[in-house]
């Protein structure tokens, strides 16, 4: 199985802003992303938990997107802008994929 090096963005971001982040990923040319719900967390000294948080205000979701170096760089610039206003954390790591033409 031949594998190819790509970059994986993992963006933890407040729920109300995730669609903005997704649009940014699409505009940067990322071919796909997947959004996972989260149920609890801690940041800035505060704990939150989804089942006891009636508004979407402190709810976070996780956006995963795998893509080429260039596209990831383009996306990160825009994500930095979003995270200037919105609550969230972004990290990038190396992953190996099988069908490189799809990313």
């Amino acid at each position: 199985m031949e594998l190819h090096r790509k970059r994986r963005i993992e963006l933890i971001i407040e729920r109300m802003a995730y669609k903005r982040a997704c649009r940014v990923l699409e505009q940067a040319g990322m071919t796909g992303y997947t959004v996972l719900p989260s149920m609890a967390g801690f940041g800035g000294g505060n704990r939150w938990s989804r089942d006891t948080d009636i508004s979407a205000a402190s709810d976070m979701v996780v956006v995963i997107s795998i893509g080429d170096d260039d596209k990831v760089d383009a996306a990160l610039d825009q994500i930095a802008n979003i995270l200037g206003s919105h609550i969230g954390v972004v990290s990038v790591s190396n992953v190996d994929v099988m069908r490189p033409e799809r990313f």
Partner: protein
Amino acid sequence: MDTALSTLLSPIILFFMLGMGAALLRSQMSVPEAFSKGLSIYLMMAIGLKGGVEMSKNPLTTEVILVLAAGIVLSFAIPALAFVLLKFTTRLSRTDAAATAAHYGSISIVTFVAATEAVRLSGFEPGGHLVATAALMETPAIITALILAHQGQKARGDIAGSERGELVREVLLNASVVVLVGALIIGWIAGEDGTANVQPFFTGLFQGVLCLFLLDMGLNAGRGLRQGWRQMTVSTFVFGLYMPLISAVITAGVCAVLGLPVGDAALLITLAASASYIAVPAAMRLALPEAKPSVYLTLSLGVTFPFNVTVGIPIYIFLAQQAASLSG
């Protein structure tokens, strides 16, 4: 004040206190979010339908239109007052003060529903158009707050990925507006006969479901208070207690001028005094993300909501009676 006590001892309020107590004692219990969100859609359908059916029985009078207009004006005006009070009495930033003010101009549907039950228990029958008023009062406060927040500030570029229309869609087509207004219109069209088949579900169960829902609201409010109170100063905390009273007194005056019957007046006062904790926070995250949710959510959900549901509503009914006797 006998009805006040019987309101306080009704199962609905007792379940609210149970939830709040459990949360303050750090119980880990919770109502699954998907379940309580489902119940909230049920509640909004039920009050929308009921309001619509009642409106279908009477023609649209000038009084009805005046109440609707008064609601809109109050929702626009209250945030300005709240903003001034916050800027004078607390150290909140301009943005935080504006965002918080928006919550107090908008409304809490659950408070409205609890007040409706209490009003009925006290022997008054509110009109169906108060539901429409509730729906109309959700949004204007947001506009005032945005103007206050941006006033005298240099324009900031848009956040990346934001889309024309996303805020408008969030504000005008959120679940509570869609379901409330939609059900109201459906109730209006279908009328008493057309909705007879669905009454066992929407009327018969209403108060029971409300118990379950308020248990969850108590858990939410209690946890909100427990987690957020350390980030609050005394001056912001007390704002959450006196602001609803100020809005209530002003609105009682409006009711006296308009000569509203007690039931309608009590609900309009409650709407003015209640603070949003679902629709407005969501809108603020989109429009004013720099404002700190821990401030406005703790205030509206952890302080004002429990205050209104327990102590506030009896006071608002009392004010409505005074207003009615003044004008009558």
